[in-house]
């Protein structure tokens, strides 16, 4: 069954794969294409940029804010939908191959890592993992720099931090998938011995201060093959294969080749299953779901056959029927960055300095931190877990606060201009409150689809706009009438605050 190519599906694709847009932008995007495949190809046709955030110096909140400002600018002000799609993919990678600023000796390493993600965003995943292994931010974050196996086998072990997360979080996952896409605890993907030996295979990388150098130093892998101090290599066994000379970086026995060739009980490539599941959760809906494993297996085979190129995988996912199903449209919670960036874009704010919105005394980056998403500082190596963990009393009120400030923003770089939102209603000194509510709800995409506001909710918004029926019209004759300031911008703020708008 072909996916219907219409405005609603174009809007859905842009919301998920990019950061949405105004109705005019969605319409233009729709009109450029005759079908979903072409539209997805446009989004994936971005040119991977080598831009680098301005990160340097101590990892203070102040310096981090500068980097956050820069990244928010890229996301908010990308004119082409494909460039916005690029940013969303970079954000995915930041949340998949996770490092955090807090363990860095210098913030520049987080900037270098962001550049690595930019360059590889739709490239080859295996190449990216290979580069990530000796990315300095990762070496600091997961203790690669202290992972030096000693030849005193009595007291010491290799530092397992990176070796474990490489298998658990970056490539294989702890377990194979059950039919519903959840973990099957009876089918582990690796053993503790595999983790331990993987850590040994990853020894030897050092970051040398002052020389900008990251390199492989045979002295630092000391004893990697030598558990008993007899100066002879000791074989290690990973996934049942033995070698005296496993290394993660290719020569001579590439342990990453072993990882990327693992298959599950049904013969699916396991890295592909794991990455497909993670991308599906990011773009479509969270596992588990009935029959999800079968769907993921189809994507995984495309990914594996393409030698772990991300573009064909994403093309298949974002063009798939299931991606446009009601099931996909009703369960994805917006993360804070999406909430902020997509709201600005939907309301036509196309330029930004990345700083404050409305009367807020906090920068956007800081507001995102309070909403639970401190860019460049994920909570731990698993990244932000997403879904309902975004929403609690504290973070919800932070969203309400942002909504209020954005809706009330009548001046400055982030001003929300009402004329294009209200369309033909604008200029009318006695506009219908119901029509005003409908225009705003349409603008924010909550007029159609499973998340459309209910009639009860529409009634509540109209009751607010009319002081519970005490008045029959609104004066929207210009941007600054009292009705506009209190009622129109009030409705805008309320829709941004609704539970439905927290999903996308």
């Amino acid at each position, binding site marked *: 069954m072909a996916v219907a190519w219409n405005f609603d599906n174009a809007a859905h694709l842009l919301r998920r794969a990019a950061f949405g847009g105004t109705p005019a932008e969605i319409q233009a995007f729709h009109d450029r294409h005759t079908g979903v495949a072409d539209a997805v190809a446009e989004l994936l046709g971005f040119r991977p940029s080598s831009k680098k955030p301005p990160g340097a110096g101590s990892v203070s909140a102040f310096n981090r804010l500068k980097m956050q400002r820069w990244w928010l600018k890229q996301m908010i002000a990308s004119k082409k939908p494909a460039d916005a799609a690029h940013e969303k993919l970079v954000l995915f990678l930041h949340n998949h191959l996770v490092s955090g600023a807090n363990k860095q000796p210098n913030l520049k390493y987080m900037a270098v890592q962001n550049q690595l993600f930019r360059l590889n965003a739709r490239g080859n995943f295996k190449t990216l993992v290979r580069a990530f292994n000796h990315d300095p931010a990762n070496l600091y974050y997961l203790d690669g720099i202290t992972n030096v196996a000693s030849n005193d086998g009595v007291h010491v072990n290799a530092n*397992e931090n990176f070796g474990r997360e490489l298998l658990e979080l970056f490539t294989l996952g702890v377990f194979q998938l059950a039919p519903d896409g959840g973990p099957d605890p009876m089918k582990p993907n690796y053993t503790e011995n595999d983790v331990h030996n993987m850590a040994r295979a990853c020894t030897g990388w050092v970051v040398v201060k002052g020389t900008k150098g990251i390199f492989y130093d045979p002295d630092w892998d000391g004893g990697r093959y030598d558990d008993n101090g007899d100066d002879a290599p000791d074989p290690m066994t990973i996934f049942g294969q033995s070698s005296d000379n496993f290394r993660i970086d290719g020569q001579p026995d590439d342990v990453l080749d072993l990882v990327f060739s693992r298959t599950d009980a049904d013969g699916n490539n396991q890295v592909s299953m794991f990455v497909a599941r993670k991308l599906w959760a990011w773009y479509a809906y969270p596992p588990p779901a009935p029959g999800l494993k079968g769907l993921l297996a189809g994507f995984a085979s495309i990914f594996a056959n393409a030698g772990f190129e991300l573009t064909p995988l994403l093309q298949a996912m974002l063009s798939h029927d299931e991606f446009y199903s009601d099931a996909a449209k009703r369960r994805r919670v917006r993360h804070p960055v999406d909430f902020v960036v997509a709201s600005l874009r939907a309301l036509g704010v196309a330029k930004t300095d990345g700083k404050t919105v409305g009367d807020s005394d906090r920068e956007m980056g800081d507001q995102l931190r309070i909403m639970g998403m401190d860019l460049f500082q994920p909570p731990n190596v698993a990244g932000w877990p997403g879904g309902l963990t975004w929403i609690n009393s504290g973070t919800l*009120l932070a969203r309400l606060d942002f909504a209020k400030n954005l809706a009330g923003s009548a001046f400055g770089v982030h001003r929300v201009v009402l004329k294009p939102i209200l369309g033909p209603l604008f200029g009318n000194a006695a506009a219908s409150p119901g029509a005003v509510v409908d225009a705003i709800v349409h603008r924010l995409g909550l007029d159609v689809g499973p998340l459309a506001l209910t009639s009860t909710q529409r009634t509540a918004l109209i009751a607010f706009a009319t002081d519970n029926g005490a008045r029959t019209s609104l004066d929207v004759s210009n941007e600054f009438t009292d009705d506009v300031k209190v009622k129109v911008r009030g409705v805008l703020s309320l829709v941004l605050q609704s539970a439905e708008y927290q999903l996308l």
Partner: protein
Amino acid sequence: MAITRRQFLKRGAATAAALTTFGPRLRWLPGTGVSYAACSGDTIVVFVQLYGGNDGINTVYPIGGAERTKYETFRPTLKLPKTSGEFDPSFVTTFGNSSVLSIGGNANGSSYAIHPAMGALHALYGQGRAAVVNGVHYPFADHSHFRSEVIWYTADPLGTSGQGWFGRFLNYGGCFGATDVPAVMMGDDLNPLFVPTQTSLFALNRLSELQFPADGELVEKQSTVSALYDASNDRDPSLFPELVSIGNTGVATVSKMQDYYKAGSGLANAGKVEALLLDGNGDYDADNDLVYASPLNPSSNPAIAGMDMARDLKHVAAMIRADVGARFFHVATGSFDTHSNQEKGFYHSFLLREVSESIAAFYNDMKQSVTLPGGYGGYQTGDLSTKVLVVTFSEFGRTIKQNSINAGAAGTDHATCNPLFVLGGTVVGGQQYGSYPLLDDPGQYEDDLKMTFDFRDVFGTVLTSWLGVPLTDIGPGPGKLLPATTQTDPLGKNYVTFTPIGFLP
């Protein structure tokens, strides 16, 4: 409809409240749906989580006997002192302690001490207020932080149930309605220990995060946004689980917020909780003292100054004394993931001191009767210590052996069981429960300890002996509060019967 359900539950709670004349330890009345002491009772639980996997072997460590000898072999540079003479002089200067904090002999024949940075907790142990539960973990060892956290949260050794064990309790017996707020966690996100639940939960770092955007048309906007959320939580939860949950959180947040925080100045404009945290100018700040004398006040107890956990527990104390309906709390600190540099700059020592000083200050606040300034009414001012139970946990302990011979870089990797601390309430303290695992008798993996207690015995003890859940409803098994293990674990054991531990009578 949400309203009807709330009204129903309020009636239910009132009926149950009438039964409290039989005492707070009331267990169960046959034939009633809302009969647990938990529904009407006033017992409180504070969970203290040590994120990242605490090194339990250096939290309660051997000081004498065969285990000490092994400990010194496996931990050549990370070992803690067994006599005053062995203390690092800079530790003594930094922590002001050169005494071994002994807790005496263990059933395994060796003797033990608490980490020397944990003097405040050791003092409570000496007073019989705190106890150590040794070797607590789960079968089927898992060294993943994230898997292990899920397992601890759900009490399901295979980590597949997806529902927090305390969340199951909150849903149990209809004690709490969808927009009641029985649990508050001091953190960025909802701790999965409590979710998913049909009730609402608060999570916040600071009360000031609960400031409703107060701008023009406040009351109308507030009632409108509440109406929007109320409509969201009426959707079909099988199709819209996220939407319903956000709706519930929204309704609860907007309706309860003013109990907690009102963003005003002065007592009359403050929320009931916030009013306890106001300074002399009527301002509220996370680092303020409470309005009454308390060991949680940084100005009078410099030992806790700057400690996030003490700050969070000060908020918990304010919520408890303000009596706004929350009885279950979660605080956390970390990261205890000490793969490297474990004691470089006394990193682990500082973390343990934060836990010790913060918990002790909190307990001592609960223990005292407080005098509030004029105008404060409806607060719990008496000694609440017998109502408040504190339980610590971490997702796993760490390897028996340190992972580097280099004293500076040495750390420990992921492993299994840990000693837990329990204190307050009716805890029978001043003693250890259970045999401390032997350092040369590894469990499923060569560098892991073998557990003494299945964590379900600890949780079950809290549920039955503290929250009044009848034994018949504990499990393990389908439909019970504790999940069963469906197969024999790799060490050949099978958890079939809940066995209470004696730390609560």
